[in-house]
């Protein structure tokens, strides 16, 4: 049972149209029910935390929003308009940028090319869209520095970079475009202490720029720190929603593990 359902009328987002609305989204993989009738709203200038146990369906939800996976049922609205996001390209056109849990980098390309993948700074069509390598490099360095990501060579294939460096590049990509909604799937998992702080900083900055942010993390402390609203998923369903200040860590853990419910864990192995 949802424990605290945010009442949009009372929220700080009062009267504003949601940037993103999901209604009754379900998704099956063969026999596995990854998402079950999930509803979600996200407003401009708001950070929503998405938490849940491993395999709860968080990444699947993100993939549905970013056009990678297609929901079996349900409806998706961007700025009030029902859309069918057929491809990630479509989602990007709708202003949605995603940092995926698996990073989705091209290991054979260097850091600069990965950073600007699909949004290269290029010349006119007439000249065959020549890359402005110099400007891209300069910007890349600035972006990575702003996240404290240290990459020794910007022109070496990212396949050889460390886990944290790779994650840093994936996150920095969100800064290249100008999205109205940013989805971050466990953005800090592989990051060092200072990089992690920079990313939390970044999230706050994105909110200040009036963008919507959906962030997934297993670090409840981080979530409590940055999220205006926390949505909890369990076994594919949304089970709870908390607003900042109206919950404690215990509430979150209880909702994640389903400890408060009398029924035994309906999932588990087999």
């Amino acid at each position, binding site marked *: 049972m949802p424990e605290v359902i945010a009442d949009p009328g009372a929220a700080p987002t009062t009267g504003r149209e949601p940037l993103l609305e999901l209604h009754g989204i379900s998704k099956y*993989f*063969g*026999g596995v029910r990854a998402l079950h009738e999930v509803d979600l709203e996200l407003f401009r200038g708001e950070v929503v935390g998405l938490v849940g146990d491993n395999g709860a369906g968080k990444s699947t939800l993100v993939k549905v929003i970013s056009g990678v996976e297609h929901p*079996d049922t349900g*409806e998706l609205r961007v700025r009030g*308009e029902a859309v069918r*996001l*057929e491809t990630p*390209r479509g989602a990007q*056109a709708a202003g949605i940028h995603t940092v995926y849990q698996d990073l989705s980098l091209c290991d054979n390309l260097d850091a600069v090319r990965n950073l600007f993948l699909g949004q290269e700074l290029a010349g006119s069509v007439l000249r065959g869209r020549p890359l402005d390598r110099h400007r891209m490099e300069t910007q890349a360095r600035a972006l990575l520095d702003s996240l404290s990501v240290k990459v020794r060579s910007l022109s070496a294939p990212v396949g050889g970079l460390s886990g944290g460096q790779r994650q840093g590049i994936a996150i920095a990509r969100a800064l290249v475009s100008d999205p109205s909604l940013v989805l971050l799937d466990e953005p800090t998992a592989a990051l060092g202490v200072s990089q992690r702080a920079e990313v939390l900083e970044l999230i706050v900055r994105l909110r200040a720029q009036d963008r919507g942010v959906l962030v997934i993390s297993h670090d409840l402390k981080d979530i409590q720190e940055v999220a205006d609203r926390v949505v909890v998923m369990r076994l594919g369903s949304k089970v709870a929603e908390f607003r900042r200040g109206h919950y404690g860590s215990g509430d979150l853990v209880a909702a994640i593990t389903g400890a408060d419910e009398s029924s035994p864990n309906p999932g588990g192995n087999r």
Partner: protein
Amino acid sequence: MSVDQSPVTAAAAPGQPSTPLRSRIAGGFSGPYRSIPVLIVLALIWLYFYSQNSAYLTSANITNLSLQIVTTAILALGVVFVLLVGEIDLSSAMLSGVAATVTAQLAVKSEWPLWLAVLGGVVVGLLFVFVEALVIVFGVPSLIVTLGGMVVLQGLLLVVLPPEFTINVGGTDFAEIASTRIPAGWSLALAAAGWLVFCAVRLSRHRARGTAAAPTALVSVGVSALVSGVVIFGVVVVLTQDRGLPLPVLILVSMLLVGSYFTTQTRYGSHLYAVGGNREAAQRAGIPVARMVVYSFLVLGACSAVAGVVEASRLLAVSNSSGGGPLMLNAIAAAVVGGASLFGGRGTVWAALLGALVIGSINNGVQLLGMSTEVQSFATGGVLILAVAIDVVITRGSLLPNRR
């Protein structure tokens, strides 16, 4: 904002079943059930050609077909092993010619006993692929090694052939490999034995699960026993109509069964798939990757020698054109049509049989219709692509391409 976004016209109805059929189908055709779509495609091909010429499904033509595909299928079996570990091969068809020539030399000219001569051919096949595999393991791409190997084998074929460049094996023991027919009685007995073993294994597996085994599992054992029984006996009855079961078919089936056992039930098979799926990970898990690559090439070598011997026995001769022609590409295509991936780690040994059947059925049917050469080309190429396209559609359960 873009064509990719369109307003939802028919919003999903709320009352839908909990697991949509489509996802269930798509999920169901992965893994061991991957063969089902190919079988459907095969049925469509057969139906089509039968509707064009009813001679297509006579037992005589089915026997024809089975003999026409045996060589391709045996070679494709070897190719599947090599594809599984993420390598490719271009030399095995030529190798089959060389191995067959060596066998023919030994059997016909040097008058060795047939089994020893065949063994000689197999040894030649194994030696050659062993050298190739060593070079591949050293780090040279398999495409280059086997392409170079193919060129070398073209020369080798001229060397092992006698000066008159052909050995006619008609009328010798060698010719009997392809012409031997196992009488219906024996064939049925063999089939029955095989089927009983299959059922016994399934049942004992079921028992091994012990108390955890649900009654539904028992039902599934029963169903699979029934289905396999119908298929096995049906095929044997059809193939024995025409003077008995051809020996090459039995050879092919035995090789497939052994291959299937090793790839699915043993440690060795597990490692093959691991090497093809993620070579780095397999190596880190302590799997001797190089050795697995060599093993799979050795299987290819053995298969190609057997394929060459069967083909020579069917053609009653070896010559400097042995192993040439479209055999190599057909074998690779058969493996891929059957579901093996060029990128490694996907496919079963049955891919070899199914793919060869699809390709062979198309060739057989097209030729039966007696069209002109040009039209035959169009039909052969077109139907092949169409067949795989239908397979793709059924497998993913949707007409729409993977959105990219």
